[in-house]
């Protein structure tokens, strides 16, 4: 397995990240059994973490500079904040 640092990481790094993402998905499934505003926030935080991994690592945005990182991570934060606000107001 190569240890070469590519824009898209190494195979081992990809495997570790994929495992973490699958684990977070299973956590979403099990935590989602419970309802409520706090759980909604927790599940949205997990979604932000997962989305950040896909954006920064798989899309290689961590090598693209602050502007592109900010645009995509900012989108994630904005959308999840709007959803959290709507769920909090509707609770």
């Amino acid at each position: 397995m190569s240890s070469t640092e590519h824009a898209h990481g190494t195979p081992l790094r990809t495997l570790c990240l994929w495992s973490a993402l699958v684990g977070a998905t299973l956590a979403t499934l099990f935590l989602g059994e419970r309802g409520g505003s706090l759980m909604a926030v927790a599940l949205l935080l997990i979604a932000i973490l997962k989305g950040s991994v896909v954006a920064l690592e798989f899309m290689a945005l961590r090598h693209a500079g602050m502007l592109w990182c900010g645009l995509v991570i900012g989108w994630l934060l904005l959308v999840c904040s709007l959803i959290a606000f709507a769920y909090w107001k509707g609770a």
Partner: protein
Amino acid sequence: MRPPPALPRLRAMGHDTTLTADSTPRLSGDLAVWFFILAELLAFGVFFAAYAFARMRHRELFDAGQALLDRNTGALNTILLLSGSALVVRAVQGNQRGEGRRSARWMLGAMACGLLFVGLKASEYAAAFAAGISLSSSLFHMFYLSLTFFHFMHVILGLVVLAVLWQGLRQDRYRQDANPLESGAAYWHMVDLVWLILFPLVYVIH
């Protein structure tokens, strides 16, 4: 034996996509594709916000509709998309190492994940339609069907993109210029990224 320094070796092989910690910022893929990705994210973002604010006014209706959905299938679809994305990354990494033809099999694996997603989603739609559910059944089902079908169409387009990339990898077309491969990969990851919010929003959070 310690391998030779990677950067000079890969540059000598004609690769220009390897980065080190001190590399200047570089967007993976074509700039035009990234503008397209931003437009797509914006469209999905509006859709997600509309769903959340509609639910704010009709909480019981949305919770009752959501209870009819199969969360396990939703989670399995999430894992399939994540696996597809990871396999696309492996294909890009393989191409960067000059193993274009060999990395085509990673792309084939990603396509298999995408096709399984399509199959699962189609069976979910078939079950919903068989139960008499349609766009006009309720506000929740209008959002559920339109939002997930909008994403479904993106998966179909993504599969077409992956098939083109697979063919290119088999012919080792991206050895000198990885831009088309990275652009197509970025599109597929966007489809995955959007689902990572859609899944908890529509299937889980209540």
